[in-house]
């Protein structure tokens, strides 16, 4: 009899536990994060993870849902991105994808996700084409690079009063998109392009011939459209070869590493157009920067902030009922909130086109904001 009594008691306890677990358990959702963790883009993978960790902590302690991130390395190579996209799409537990990082990789992955009704929210890919392919699953947390490059061209023409530019871009969808936008707008305004060259990202490292070529032209500004690795080497080569023109670039060069590799002496006066500035006085931005500084004791660049906003956008959509791949596709476009990088609100193309583009320059070896 005693055994029966214990058995009965334990069954009740177990059942009670099961019930209470069911009540307490929050739904768990998996989100795929494909981006470069090796190769030249590895530094971006690392800082993106830092931003994601802060966001994940906030979302999971809020307690409405629980999010688990599944990281995949696409090595910034489009062919690998397509493979990763297939793996993520096949995994039925993955509800959304936050990525890819590089425009070329996003372009390779997007059609694959579209076939599987999987939301792809890219935090950093700026190539215009990405949201103009007629795929309704593609979103991005930033504006397109034609907006940024047009503003850059206007700035060079109006504010710097420069009429001749030398342009160098990385030979990728990202670099080419920025360069085409800049050249179109600059020529429309009446400026002329003295030279236009490209380099292979992750491969070309010797830019002395490039600068030697630019030096023979009459350009008054050097427009570098790529990420910090090559942009800083180009700036450094320009300094070494005595090519004294101002350097201007996109968000890729707003990075402390740029100062270190290009050396503060040659980086002085360089201008960056970016969606994220540590000087920006917005409350949400400053709150994120404070959290980031406490966690990692350094200043964030734009990438972790974009990933922070990206994962929050997806989490909000899930909380509002986007609990399956299909439902998420319906709810994500309606999301609107103030994030670390400004207003997160998707327009009819699924771009955050209302985001403010900011300008920074290197002054006394530090990035500081340029007032409007």
């Amino acid at each position, binding site marked *: 009899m005693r055994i029966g009594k214990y058995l009965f008691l334990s069954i009740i306890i177990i059942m009670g536990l099961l019930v209470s677990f069911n009540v307490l358990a929050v739904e768990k959702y998996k989100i795929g994060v494909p981006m470069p963790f090796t*190769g030249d883009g590895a*530094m971006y993978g690392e800082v993106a993870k830092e931003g994601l960790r802060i966001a994940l902590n906030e979302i999971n302690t809020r307690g409405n849902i629980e999010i688990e991130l599944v990281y995949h390395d696409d090595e910034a190579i489009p062919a690998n991105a397509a493979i990763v996209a297939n793996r993520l799409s096949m995994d039925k537990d993955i509800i959304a994808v936050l990525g890819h990082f590089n425009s070329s990789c996003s372009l390779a992955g997007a059609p694959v996700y579209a076939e599987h009704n999987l939301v792809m929210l890219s935090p950093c890919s700026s190539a215009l084409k990405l949201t103009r392919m007629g795929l309704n699953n593609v979103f991005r947390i930033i504006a397109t690079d034609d907006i940024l490059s047009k503003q850059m061209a206007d700035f060079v023409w109006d504010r710097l009063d420069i009429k001749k530019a030398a342009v160098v871009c990385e030979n990728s969808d990202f670099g080419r998109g920025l360069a085409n936008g800049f050249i179109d707008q600059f020529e429309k305004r009446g400026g002329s392009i003295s030279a236009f*060259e490209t380099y292979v990202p992750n491969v070309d*490292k010797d830019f002395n*011939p490039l600068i*030697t*070529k630019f030096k023979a032209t009459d350009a008054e500004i050097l427009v570098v459209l790529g990420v910090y690795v090559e942009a800083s080497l180009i700036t450094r080569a320009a300094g070494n070869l*005595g090519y004294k023109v101002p350097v201007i670039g996109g968000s890729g060069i707003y990075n402390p590493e740029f100062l270190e590799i290009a050396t503060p002496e040659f980086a002085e006066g360089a201008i960056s157009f970016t969606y994220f500035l540590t000087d920006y006085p917005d409350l949400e931005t400053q709150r994120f920067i404070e959290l980031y500084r406490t966690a990692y004791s350094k200043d964030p660049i734009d990438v972790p902030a974009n990933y922070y906003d990206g994962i929050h956008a997806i989490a909000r959509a899930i909380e509002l009922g986007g609990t399956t791949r299909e439902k998420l596709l319906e709810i994500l476009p309606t999301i609107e909130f103030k994030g670390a990088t400004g207003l997160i609100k998707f327009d009819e193309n699924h771009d955050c086109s209302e985001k403010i583009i900011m300008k920074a320059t290197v002054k006394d070896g530090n990035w500081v904001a340029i007032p409007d």
Partner: protein
Amino acid sequence: MDNTSLSHFVQVTINGLSMGCVYALVAVGYGMVYGILNMINFAHGEIYMFGAYIAYSALVCKMGLFSSILLSLFFCGVLGVTVERLAYKPLREASRIAPALTAMAVALLIRSAVMIIWGSSPIMFPQVINNKPIILNNNIRFYPLQFSIIFVTIVIWVFSLWLFKYTKIGKAIRAVSQDRNTAWLMGIDADKIVSIVYLYGSILAAIAGFLIANYYILLFPLMGFLGTIRAWTAAVLGGIGKLSGAVIGGLLIGLVESFAMTYISTAYKDVIIFIVLIIILLVMPRGLLKGRGQKV
């Protein structure tokens, strides 16, 4: 040609020569191993990359310039000989394709190990060699580093020529390269000679790695692989297996690249380099210095 475009031309030549010497420096070690052992050592580039990382770590630990280089030479030598003993020696009698594939696997292993130890993002190499540009006039500038690369390449070239031609060990190496079995019969310890060749090749790789890391400023795990593509092209162009061919091929490729980038287009420089390679191989199938054409 007016004065400005002349000095521009001189600058382009200097750029090309220093790039070319970088390729030649790698190609000398790469081509030497091929010339003697008839085996493409795909791991050569990884060894020079490894050497650069070792030198980086030594410099970060505040070791002096020379002790850092020596440390890097030592580690690369040990790595080269170990790889030879463990991965290539058991395959000496196998078909020619087997050791080449093993070399690729070894290259992958070394690259992954470097990624695990030092991480995969690019690292800035401490600037230990004074690299303030020497200014001739506003349009001609060169770095002391460019000249040290050219200088070291010439020293290595001359030293290797002397080593192979006039020393006892050089003669033994040439004997092994011509016919290993007969060399055995003549009392030459061929296994030892092969090890020495790898040791020497790895040391050359370490020197190249140190200079190139200084020249490119950045260290990244793919630098070895990318370096060997150009170096291999240089070796083929100059005549495979020929020491002087590697140097001449490297210089030629550097010059073609520099002139193509400056006077034609940066985007098509690789196309132009390979067009030059194809033309030269069509006219001289064994390369500029008539290397071992029949075996390529």
